[in-house]
């Protein structure tokens, strides 16, 4: 055969591609479960179901009792290149390629028996409603109720908080249509009131509310948050971390005990109110242990640590502090996610598969910070979703 013949060669000229279609070489492949896949060639059409096992056995494949061959795919090739015996010339003829699976014989159920068994079933008490697999986190951080700046004050702050709450509820409803959300975490991250402790008490001079008025506003805002989300999820968790502005005093220049906090007290007051009102058994308030500045909870398979952030002083040192907590076997050391406030701007730092997220604020702003740094952060309420140690969908509302 010269080059001209080869250039013009066609299937009709008895020269066909030497290779079989991919995956269709006659073969028997076993997998560890004992299941086998058999590919074979044959002329004509395959027989009915009763013949499949015998056809495969005829190839020399051992099919033990309780197993059978099932024909799963057939391909017909009208012009296949076939060599019937070693040394023979290849010929072109029609073949069917058949793929069988050897598998355990399916047990046939007796439908009458099955229906009778269903009829005998005694009803059981309805199980509790299953929790959705996802958690929705709404961060409550650095409200600093009572603070004034740029000719704005508590009035503007409260409107921002309530607008963000409305937006967060809307977002929750949207997300709940896309994934099952069983838990809402209202993470109270400290500095909810402007207070009286910071700046040696001078902060009170610029506040537009007295301390007790600040606490009243904080309590009622917190109550609104719980009331807004309570009808929407099977579980509401309100972990509360104390902030530096929440410290009730610094008598003689000394800090109070860590858990001595207006933010913690506001949560406990709301918890008491809901207990009296009734119908809020699915709402959990989690406050710090004595002398602890943190709380650590579990929600939707994620361990969430909450801290205000003043204990690590610089936002760059969050993971350093967190690692020390782990070294000390503090419960927050095992968290997947660390939520904090204090620094008033969004910051997400991932390290070793653990994510520290600092929430932005909704306060009127800080001329002091802006004069030093050229501008303030984007204000808003941080929301995100979590499940099984991971998080997604971070949005500032």
């Amino acid at each position, binding site marked *: *055969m*010269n*080059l*001209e013949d*080869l*250039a*013009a*060669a*066609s*299937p009709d*000229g008895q*020269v*066909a*591609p*030497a290779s079989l279609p991919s995956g269709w070489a006659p073969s028997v492949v076993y997998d560890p479960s004992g299941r086998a896949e058999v590919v074979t060639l044959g002329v004509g059409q395959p027989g009915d179901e009763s013949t499949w096992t015998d056809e495969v056995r005829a190839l020399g494949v051992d099919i033990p009792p309780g197993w059978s061959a099932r024909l799963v795919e057939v391909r017909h090739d009208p012009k296949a290149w076939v060599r019937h015996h070693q040394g023979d010339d290849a010929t072109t003829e029609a073949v069917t390629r058949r793929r069988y699976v050897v598998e355990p014989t399916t047990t046939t159920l007796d439908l009458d028996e099955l229906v009778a068994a269903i009829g005998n079933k005694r009803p059981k008490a309805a199980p509790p409603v299953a929790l959705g697999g996802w958690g929705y986190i709404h961060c409550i951080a650095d409200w600093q109720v009572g603070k004034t700046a740029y000719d704005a004050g508590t009035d503007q702050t409260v409107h921002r908080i309530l607008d963000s709450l409305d937006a967060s509820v809307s977002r929750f409803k949207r997300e709940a249509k896309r994934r099952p959300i069983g838990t809402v975490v209202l993470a109270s991250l400290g500095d909810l009131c402007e207070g009286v402790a910071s700046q040696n008490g001078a902060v009170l001079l610029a506040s537009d509310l007295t301390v007790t008025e600040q606490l009243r506003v904080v309590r009622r805002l917190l109550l609104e948050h719980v009331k807004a989300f309570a009808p929407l999820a099977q579980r509401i968790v309100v972990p509360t971390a104390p902030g530096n502005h929440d410290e009730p005093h610094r008598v003689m220049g000394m800090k109070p005990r860590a858990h001595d906090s207006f933010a913690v007290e506001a949560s406990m007051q709301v918890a008491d109110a809901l207990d009296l009102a009734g119908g809020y058994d699915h709402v959990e308030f989690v406050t710090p242990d004595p002398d602890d500045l943190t709380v650590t909870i579990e929600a939707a398979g994620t361990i969430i640590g909450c801290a205000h952030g003043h204990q690590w002083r610089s936002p760059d040192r969050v993971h350093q502090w967190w690692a020390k907590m782990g070294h000390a076997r503090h419960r927050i050391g095992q968290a997947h996610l660390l939520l904090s406030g204090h620094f008033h701007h969004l910051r997400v730092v991932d390290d070793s598969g653990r994510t520290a997220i600092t929430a932005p604020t909704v306060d009127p702003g800080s001329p002091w910070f802006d004069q030093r740094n050229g501008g303030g952060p984007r204000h808003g309420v941080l929301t995100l979703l979590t499940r099984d140690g991971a998080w997604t969908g971070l949005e500032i509302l």
Partner: protein
Amino acid sequence: MSSLLDNLASPDYRPPRGPECGMALVLAAVDDKTRKTLLAALDNPYAPSTKIAQALAELGHRTSVHVVQRHRRGECRCHG
């Protein structure tokens, strides 16, 4: 910038490898008519590589079937 650096900076750069493809040597040596026919045979999936190698041997070009197959698979230097 040197041409070497130009080459290294190019995402398409592949370092030179191996000797010249035997099929390229044959294609360069034959006349235009034979080259055209040979290229048609190489492109024809119904022309076995063994037969092409035999046909070339009859024309005086000793080229193994492996060279023909490698060239047809695009794994030789002709294809970069």
